[in-house]
């Protein structure tokens, strides 16, 4: 059986969920967990940062980590409702 390709909404949910579970996560670990190509990963991350869903923190040793912003938390809460709306309207 061919696995169903994830919708954009599912990819975003997965990325945010992973960050939430880890509180803070390094870019490489998040890339592996997201199961995306580096190019696609970069596109999603840039979009999530620009939309203020996630924050990129850089410490004094120049180590980068991602953490969830308030909007990201809001999205995860809304996700169930949006998913339910999509399913109930057959969209």
């Amino acid at each position: 059986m061919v696995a169903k390709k994830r919708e954009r909404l599912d990819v975003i949910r997965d990325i945010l969920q992973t960050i939430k579970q880890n509180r803070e996560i390094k870019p490489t670990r998040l890339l592996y967990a997201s199961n995306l190509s580096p190019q696609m990963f970069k596109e999603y991350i840039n979009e999530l940062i620009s939309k203020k869903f996630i924050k990129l923190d850089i410490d004094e040793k120049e180590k980068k980590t991602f953490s969830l912003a308030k909007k990201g938390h809001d999205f995860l809460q809304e996700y169930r409702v949006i998913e339910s709306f999509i399913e109930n309207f057959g969209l």
Partner: protein
Amino acid sequence: MSLYSLIVENKFILEAFYALIICSICMLIVLKTDKFYKLSLHRGIRYFRNAFFFYGVAFAVRYLFGIFSDFSLHYAFVFGMMFEYFLIMAGFFLLYSLIYRKIESPTEYYKSSLLNPKIFVFHIMALMISVFGYLWQTYSFMFFSQIAVFFCAMIISLVNHKRYGKQRKFLKFYFIAMFFGLAAWTLNLLVALLFNWNPALLINIGMINVIFFLLFLYGVIKFTK
């Protein structure tokens, strides 16, 4: 005064009121789903919103059509064609929101949902139908196209309901809405061809149409509250 003559005498007010109700419902649907779309950028939500945006514009045009048709026959033709065009496009968008997954690949993402290669085909079809309607001075082309669209949409929503109805309760209402939509278009055709646009019958069709839009509004409010 009989009900029939009351309707005929107040036709303009009733039509304006009717257009205003439908237009308001459509705008409410578009506004209420705005947050969902902005958060998800989901293609299905986008096409669904387009459908109701076009319905809203169509009925706004119809309202203007009522005003300007009293002044000039030329305006009446122009607004009549615009009304047809927007209404046909709305039907196409509603159907497309149900079948886009079969047509577009998951990675396919167009910046514009109003004008992209796939939607362009609908624009051409809607334009052709409204121009033919104008040239032959008939609404039959529009009626037949929308009966076909709603028949397909009703079958798809019935399949969805049979498959997932137990977990997704609104699919039943979606199917009912599509049934009302199909009934309204079919009755419209019959009233135009067999009953010479009988105003009393048109009122009943108008009420079926209002139920169609209210069912969608109910669903949208239920999920967005």
